[in-house]
């Protein structure tokens, strides 16, 4: 029986396995994670985010903020679109005008609705005037790639198929659900990428993705790797694994309108009864770090000194006793009360739910697990039809997201305050945070919010998932970013024998 040889990336081309196909590479319409990540390679943005999620210039030399509602951006000169035309301020204005034009129906309208007008000052200078101060404005700019005005106006329909940007790679082929091929942009303003070509291959099954990696048909995989398979991957001489703590935050959400869960002592008891470290160690194989709140330690607004709930069964039992929920038969089969725990059909989430069920049983709480396919599950939690549920927040950058999650005006359908959490002080601070431009003052505001949330516990913080990339050993320069971005592909190179 002949054993096939593991192949290495050749000809400066690397193949990356993706679980699902991006749906739309037009930055004005892209909404899913893979579309964002690929759009980062095809386009440039005015602003990008540094490792602490501070806004820093991308295709601009500098920006000025003469008053709370005005931003002036000075573009770098000589940046070319893939078709050879130069990027100027009219392209910037055009891009955002499209998003703000109701006829375009861009899903990013809400992020930029505070823009009052966009004025071209000269070929390389553009001014944005806001209706009112809005602190997350700069960070919101980091997701919108600039599209060329002339091309767009000529061919609105075909744009989706052949996007033209200024990014380090050009789109060569997009076969939905099969593969996306990107070629290097030799004229990239920040230096030609070292790779000639990147092929993103869509492989929905996680085991098959790993087999393809094992065979050398795929050279890099990032995340979506079952933790159980890590011991196997670690033994492979041809592969290397790069890990970096991420920002994806997993939590258990409470329905604060529920007769039992509205008692803070019960929520505290549940938080104490869950042994997160054991779940991280045995189920997640160490690929997560315990979380203390929505904002990860990477975020500039992260507050370290908040109330944390270390695993303590005794404390949990005492709190439940204090709440009048007595365990009448001690360690016997009788439970104090029963709660429903909703989760998706994802196998890993179901396993974690079972562990939590067991851990809560030890303090006398009976958990009934209900797992639903995503659409039904999401519909239930949005409508408040739950007691406990588990989910993750992905891609948290600006702390203003707290408005969307915990402000009392954000109860669905307006926002994602699904647990119906209401705290006037938190409301006030969140509102202040979004209009305060001074970073130090803003940080103090969000620190206080995080401390209050950790005491009120509308969520039990579980963990931040670790980002993992598994790649062929000959690949160098790949950086795993906290949000799983593919930025570093422009600096990746292959070591040939």
């Amino acid at each position, binding site marked *: *029986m*002949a*054993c*096939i040889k593991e192949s290495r990336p050749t000809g400066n081309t690397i193949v990356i396995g993706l679980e699902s196909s991006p*749906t*739309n590479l037009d930055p004005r319409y892209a*909404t*899913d994670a893979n579309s964002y990540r690929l759009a980062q390679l095809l386009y440039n943005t005015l602003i990008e985010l540094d490792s602490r999620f501070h806004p820093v210039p991308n295709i601009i030399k500098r920006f000025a903020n003469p008053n709370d509602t005005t931003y002036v951006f000075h573009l770098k000169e000589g940046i070319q679109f893939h078709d050879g035309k130069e990027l100027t301020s009219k392209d910037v204005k055009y891009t955002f005008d499209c998003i703000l034009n*109701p006829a375009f*129906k*861009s*899903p*990013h*309208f*809400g*992020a930029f*609705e505070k823009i009052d007008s966009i004025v071209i000052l000269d070929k390389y200078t553009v001014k944005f005037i806001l209706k009112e101060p809005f602190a997350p404005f700069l960070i919101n700019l980091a997701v919108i790639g600039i599209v060329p005005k002339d091309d767009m106006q000529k061919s609105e329909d075909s744009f*989706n198929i052949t996007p033209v940007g200024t990014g380090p790679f050009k789109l060569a082929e997009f076969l*939905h*659900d*099969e*593969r996306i091929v990107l070629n290097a942009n030799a004229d990239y303003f920040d230096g030609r990428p070292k790779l000639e070509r990147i092929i993103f*291959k*869509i*492989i*929905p*099954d996680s*085991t*098959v993705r790993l*087999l*393809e990696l*094992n*065979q050398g*048909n795929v050279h890099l995989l990032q995340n979506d790797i079952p933790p159980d398979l890590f011991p196997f991957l670690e033994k492979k001489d041809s592969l290397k694994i790069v890990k970096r703590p991420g920002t994806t935050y997993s939590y258990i959400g409470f329905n604060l309108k529920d007769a039992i869960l509205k008692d803070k002592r019960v929520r505290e008891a549940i938080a104490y009864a869950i042994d997160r470290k054991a779940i991280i160690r045995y189920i997640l194989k160490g690929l997560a770090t315990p979380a203390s709140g929505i904002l990860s330690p990477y975020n500039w607004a992260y507050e370290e000194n908040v109330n944390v709930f270390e695993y303590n069964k005794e404390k949990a039992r005492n709190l439940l006793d204090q709440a009048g929920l007595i365990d009448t038969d001690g360690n016997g089969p009788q439970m104090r009360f029963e709660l429903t725990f909703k989760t998706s059909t994802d196998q890993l989430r179901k396993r974690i739910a079972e562990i939590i069920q067991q851990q809560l049983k030890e303090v006398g709480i009976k958990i009934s697990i209900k797992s639903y*396919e*995503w*659409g*039904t599950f*999401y*519909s*239930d939690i*949005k409508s408040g039809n739950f007691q406990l549920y588990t*989910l993750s*927040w*992905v*891609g948290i950058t600006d702390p203003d*997201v707290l408005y*969307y999650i915990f402000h009392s005006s954000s109860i669905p*359908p*307006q*926002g*994602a305050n699904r647990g119906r959490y209401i705290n006037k002080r938190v409301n006030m601070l969140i509102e202040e945070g979004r209009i305060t431009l001074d970073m130090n003052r803003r940080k103090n505001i969000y620190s206080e919010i995080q401390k209050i949330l950790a005491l009120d516990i509308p969520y039990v913080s579980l963990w931040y998932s670790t980002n993992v990339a598994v790649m062929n050993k000959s690949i160098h320069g790949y950086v795993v970013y906290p949000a799983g971005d593919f930025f570093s592909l422009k600096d990746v190179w292959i070591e040939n024998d």
Partner: protein
Amino acid sequence: MKDFIIKRMLLLFPVVFGVLTFVFLLIHLIPGDPVDLMLGENARAIDKEKLRESLRLDEPLAVQYMLFIKGAIKGDLGESLYNKKPVIHLILKRYPETIKLTIAAMVLALLISLPIGIYSAVKQYSFMDNCSMFFALLGVSMPNFWLGPLLMILFCVNLGWFPISGDEGLRSIVLPAITLGTAMSAILSRMVRSSMLEVINEEYIVTARAKGLSELRVIFRHALKNALVPVITVVGLQFGALLAGAIITETIFSWPGIGRLLIQAINTRDYPLVQGCVLAISISYVLINLITDIAYSYIDPRIKLR
């Protein structure tokens, strides 16, 4: 015959109309909002509203239904909510892949099941008969999600004979076809065997033998032809079922067929795409049934098509 075909083709319309109405109601009744699923958790309410409006999902259900039926009559199945491409284009691109895989699996199943079924019937209770029926039992008991990866590890990983995933030419179809065809060949070989056993005990077979015909001629000319009627029914049903998309096999082998397209459309509540896929599948089902009926009359002239 011509009248029969025309009549059956006309029947296609009420069937398709019924299926479309049923699917439309069903997909709209199940919980889950396509806008939520498209924009993700972080989306703002205003963006959701605008998108809902642009997709005309804010219209009453009756209006959405009328719009859909009006479009369908004109041959316009709308655009996929997700990638904005016309549903008809997506189906025309993906359906041939499923048809290709189905035909390959069916040919494989017939190539295996016919000889095995015939031999087992002729040599009933022989060692080979027991062996083949044991393997038939095994084949029907092996689920695709287990057999697929197993074949993949043996033939792709260890032997390197075939590509692991995707559609990269003829070699790519072999393993998905075996995965799909195994259970089918097991069912068919048992079917052929039992059908043949029934026929070879008939008096006309005894007469054929008494006439001094060779055993091969008796089996293939007289027995097999009559034994095939129930087999064709099963082939037709299985073929129709496979055309509905072999979701598990397509997912395992990253095969870009309609099954994967449909399941993604259901998961994302992409209503026009779900409706389009079901329409394509239901038309195929009706056509396969028609072909099966026509095949009966060729094989057994006693069956009249009216």
